[in-house]
């Protein structure tokens, strides 16, 4: 029973990780809480769903297609609501992404309807009993895909020139720009990568819970804030591990404690981290005002 819960938590957590990594990437480069990122995730779920419904593609194609579309959406958001805004007042970009949140949520309600919808059964659900725990094929897909994406991201950030530029920009945008890094390019790239990850997470969560609605983004955004803090603001590895931790904690709290307090856990974790260790479990440079 306990092991089964751990596995369920791991699945949930790996999807959390994907979104939180996007948040932390953007925060690292721009010191911006990208409020609309949860909405990008929600749109990703719908894009994947409609690719399956309209074009009858298989799940992998839908996943990839959704990542491409959300990447474009993310870059568009950056162009319209982040870049034109001067950074003098630190709340201005935050508030404009709140504007994007409002627009995307309402647009999704208009286009896709306000009802909760689920994925049609596109992959055959097979149960694999391992010892006394059962892993379904959907869970395997989710875990494998998210681990694969995280691995690719890790290699990209640490082993390529573009990844190095991204890390340099996160360290200090000014210095990086003096050393010849094209900051605008890096920002666009960051938004693209982060949004693609959110899109993938959207499809995966849609598959796992069979419940896609225009309002799923906000809750996810708040949880991602908690994960980001847990791992340390701007720390990518921290976001990966933090997501897994929160997933497991949530599932265990539902199994062994009161289920209706599940959502409070993320926020309790947030407050605790802020009181005792604001740099997160895995360390990060502290951001001033």
């Amino acid at each position, binding site marked *: 029973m306990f092991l089964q819960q751990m596995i369920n938590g791991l699945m949930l957590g790996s999807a959390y990780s994907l979104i939180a990594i996007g948040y932390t990437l953007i925060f690292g480069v721009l*010191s911006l*809480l990208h409020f609309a990122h949860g909405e990008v995730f929600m749109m990703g779920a719908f894009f994947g769903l409609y690719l399956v419904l309209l074009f009858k593609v298989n799940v992998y194609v839908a996943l990839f297609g959704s990542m491409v579309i959300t990447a474009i959406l993310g870059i568009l958001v950056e162009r*319209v*609501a982040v870049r*034109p*805004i*001067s950074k*003098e*007042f*630190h*709340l*201005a*970009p935050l*508030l*404009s992404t*709140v*504007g*994007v*949140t*409002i*627009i995307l949520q*309402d*647009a999704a309600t*208009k286009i896709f309807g306000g009802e909760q919808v689920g994925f049609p059964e596109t992959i055959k659900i097979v149960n694999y009993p391992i010892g006394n725990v059962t892993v379904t094929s959907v869970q395997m897909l989710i875990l494998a895909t998210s681990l694969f994406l995280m691995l690719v991201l890790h290699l990209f950030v640490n082993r390529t020139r573009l990844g190095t530029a991204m890390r340099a920009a996160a360290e200090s945008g000014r210095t990086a720009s003096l050393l010849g890094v094209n900051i605008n390019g890096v920002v666009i790239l960051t938004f693209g990568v982060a949004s693609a990850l959110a899109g993938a997470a959207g499809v995966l969560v849609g598959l796992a819970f069979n419940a896609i609605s225009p309002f799923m983004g*906000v809750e996810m955004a*708040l949880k991602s*804030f*908690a994960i980001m*803090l847990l791992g340390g*603001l701007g720390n990518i590895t921290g976001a990966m591990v933090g997501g897994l931790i929160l997933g497991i904690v949530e599932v265990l709290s539902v199994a062994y404690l*009161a289920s*209706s*307090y599940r*959502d*409070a856990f993320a*926020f*309790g974790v*947030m*407050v605790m981290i*802020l*009181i005792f260790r*604001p740099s997160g479990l895995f360390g990060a440079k502290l*951001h*001033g*005002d």
Partner: protein
Amino acid sequence: MSTSMRMLSLFIAVTVVFGAYYLIANLFFRTDAYIESILIFAAINIIVSLSFYLPFSAGLLSLAQAGFMGVGAYMSASITTLWKFHFTVGPLDLTFFIALLAGGILAAIVGVLTAFPALRIRGVYLLLMTLAISEIIRVFFLNFEYTGGASGLGGIPPLTTIWNVYVALVLVVLFFVRVTKSRMGRAFESMKEDQDAAEVMGVDLTRHKVVAFAIGAFLAGISGGLYAHYALYIDSTNFGVFRSIEILIFTLLGGYEIYAGPIYGGFYLTFLPEWLRIIQDWRIIIFGGLLIVMMILRPAGLISKEMMSLRYWRSTLANLWKPRVEA
């Protein structure tokens, strides 16, 4: 002064005059239930926006105002609805007053409890912490069966009228007029500019931060009580993240430099969705778009500090039609 600035000033002047006329006309001469309800919500929104503005004017960003509002709403509604409390002095019925006060005080206590962990952190950390605390309060009410839990608390007596809500608003505004010129107001201002410099100059940061949070939470609690006794039904979703963000939008679009900003923002942004009703389906999207455009064009909000002087308006109106002389 640039042409666009002059146009903006003119726009603000016209809207303020129009708003004042509208308010007075509806207070004294007309009683249209629909307009009255919007006016009441406008006043409640202004009070809660001011409750956000007070700690913000000391450099403390609090997204927990929705949670504090919830505390005030549930507390005052418990007094009048669950406990059926009545208190009269002679012909005066003070039940509502005491209920509001109790809601405000409990919210202030929660605000002080929030302030202590918030003392050490700033910037984005403070924003996230207050957001988390607000959500914890919401989840608490969602699960607190005594006040209705998930099904909410209904049957609240309709004690909020347009008169007591505007009396409360006037008192709150008078408080702000006073506090801005007081020693405390100046301390807040210096804290906002530069916390460390303020501390060096002898401002007791701990005391002022706790006081700012407490008064802010108190005002939010009062507005929650007023809200509960007008909506007559409250549940935990009324006091979620979106309420906090709404409050943030009211203040920042109106202008965060001076208390007139949240008043302007709270009033007109309550009316705006009603006026946008003509375009029904698109009003939410237009609202979101407006937010982005405002942040690009005028991130400091519509009302700026210089607009608070009579001289500004005299020179603006005098120069309104003069062609600009290029230097």
